[in-house]
């Protein structure tokens, strides 16, 4: 039962002092670890801002690899709300029946494919194609685009053993520039075209703003979805009883998804830049330094969650912050939730059991802490339900 476990490296620091310290490229971060502090600080955009230098609120910082401001992610209210209102309806499309039918067809065909293989490397042969193909629905672009995205590998910005990879980031930026150019010449009903024709403060969104939304959409939903999918497979491999329960009670998948997001916390943390001298947990924080909202730690806070170290498949009250919290909560959450729900129900319907053969864990180095966030690779055998 150990292979699928994601340990909580923050427990002691969360209880003892409430924060951790991480030096990230000489721009240190005070990591907030308690559920209450994380939610309060996420809400307080005046003291803890997102609209700083582009890339600075990301941990590890991306200031050296990009200048494009991600929108609405790196903008504070009230401007943030204006951008968000433009993109929100588009990102709620996964609630439509037709969208879910297409997603179900994609996932069913991928699961059928892997059921016929002896061994499947889950990260590259399952999670990455699943994520990339599903993204064609979110962007409303041709299915064939997913082949290009799959060829980029698992991370848009990061390579194995390397925190930041400027070359990879440039591949993405060049691709998005080209797609925006294409949409300008031949507008269609894809996300680029819809954004380019959107009104903002009495004008159309600029190319740079559209690029900012697209970079966010690609970067935010890539390794997070891949980790969530891979961790789900690992968990189900070691918990056949849960696979069976999902088969018998498919309606609990909605709650199971929320619990997986809590437990896996696919995004460990997100930063903010401090605008004034302040305190958190009696710890002084200077203006122009950085804090981070450590979602992964908050989601294991025993003062909020009973048995935080266990996956309780149908956890009824689950105020997790796995999709962030307050103004900047995850724009792609509706899409992500549908992916996971459909995946769980499809696996329950078709798979009898899953055997993990070998794997390599992906462990984030957070200075004071080391956190397993998923796997670089994991070979498994899927056994068909007959």
């Amino acid at each position, binding site marked *: 039962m150990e292979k699928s476990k994601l340990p909580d490296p923050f427990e002691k620091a969360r209880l003892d002092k409430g924060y951790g310290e991480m030096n990230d490229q000489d721009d240190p971060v005070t990591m907030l670890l308690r559920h209450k502090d994380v*939610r*309060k600080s996420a809400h307080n955009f005046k003291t803890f801002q997102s609209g700083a230098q582009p890339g600075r609120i990301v941990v590890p910082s991306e200031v050296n690899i990009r200048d494009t401001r991600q929108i609405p992610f790196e903008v504070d209210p009230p401007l943030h709300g204006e951008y968000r209102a433009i993109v929100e309806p588009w990102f*709620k499309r996964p609630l439509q029946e037709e969208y879910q039918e297409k997603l179900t067809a994609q996932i069913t065909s991928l699961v059928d494919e892997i059921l016929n293989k002896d061994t499947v490397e889950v990260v590259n042969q399952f999670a990455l194609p699943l994520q990339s193909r599903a993204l064609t629905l979110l962007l409303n672009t041709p299915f064939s685009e997913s082949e290009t995205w799959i060829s980029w590998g698992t991370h848009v910005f990061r390579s194995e053993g390397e925190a930041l990879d400027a070359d990879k980031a440039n591949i993405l930026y060049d691709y998005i520039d080209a797609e925006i150019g294409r949409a300008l010449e031949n507008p269609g009903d894809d996300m680029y075209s819809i954004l380019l024709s959107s009104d903002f403060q009495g004008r159309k969104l600029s190319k740079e703003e559209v690029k900012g939304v697209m970079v966010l959409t690609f970067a935010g939903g890539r390794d997070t979805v891949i980790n969530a999918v891979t961790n789900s497979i690992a968990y189900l491999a070691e918990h056949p009883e849960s696979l069976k329960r999902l088969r018998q009670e498919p309606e609990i998948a*909605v*709650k199971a*998804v929320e619990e997986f997001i809590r437990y896996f916390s696919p995004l460990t943390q997100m930063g903010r830049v401090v605008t004034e001298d302040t305190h958190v947990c009696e710890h002084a924080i200077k203006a122009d330094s950085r804090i981070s909202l450590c979602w992964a730690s908050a989601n294991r806070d025993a003062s*909020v969650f009973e048995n935080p170290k266990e996956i309780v498949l149908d956890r009824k009250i689950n*105020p997790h912050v796995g999709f962030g*919290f307050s103004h900047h909560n995850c724009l792609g959450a509706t899409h992500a939730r549908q992916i996971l729900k459909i995946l769980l129900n499809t696996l329950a319907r078709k798979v009898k059991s899953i055997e993990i053969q070998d794997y390599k864990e992906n462990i984030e180095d957070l200075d004071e802490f080391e956190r397993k966030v998923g796997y670089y690779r994991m070979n498994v055998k899927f056994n068909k339900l007959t």
Partner: protein
Amino acid sequence: MAKITFITSDNESITIEGNSGSVMALAVENGIKGIDGDCGGVCSCATCHVHVRPEDMEKTGAASEIETDMLELDDNANEFSRLCCQLEIGDHLDGVVLKVAK
């Protein structure tokens, strides 16, 4: 069975009858504007925030601690706020009027 009335932000009044499940699920099934219920009812998203008509507070009861903690950080919250995923439909809710917060 309970008749529940939702008043949306553009002042539309919609009355729906429900038998079981949560008020949030009833609202989502009937496409009530401003009730999204993103998290499916586990109290993690606050997209089902309503203001209960003051005289109906007796029927709904006050928010639980976990709801209060959530609502405390919602600028639009007041003493009549509830997350309606935490309201179970039953006879006791018959006639309540809920104003959608968003």
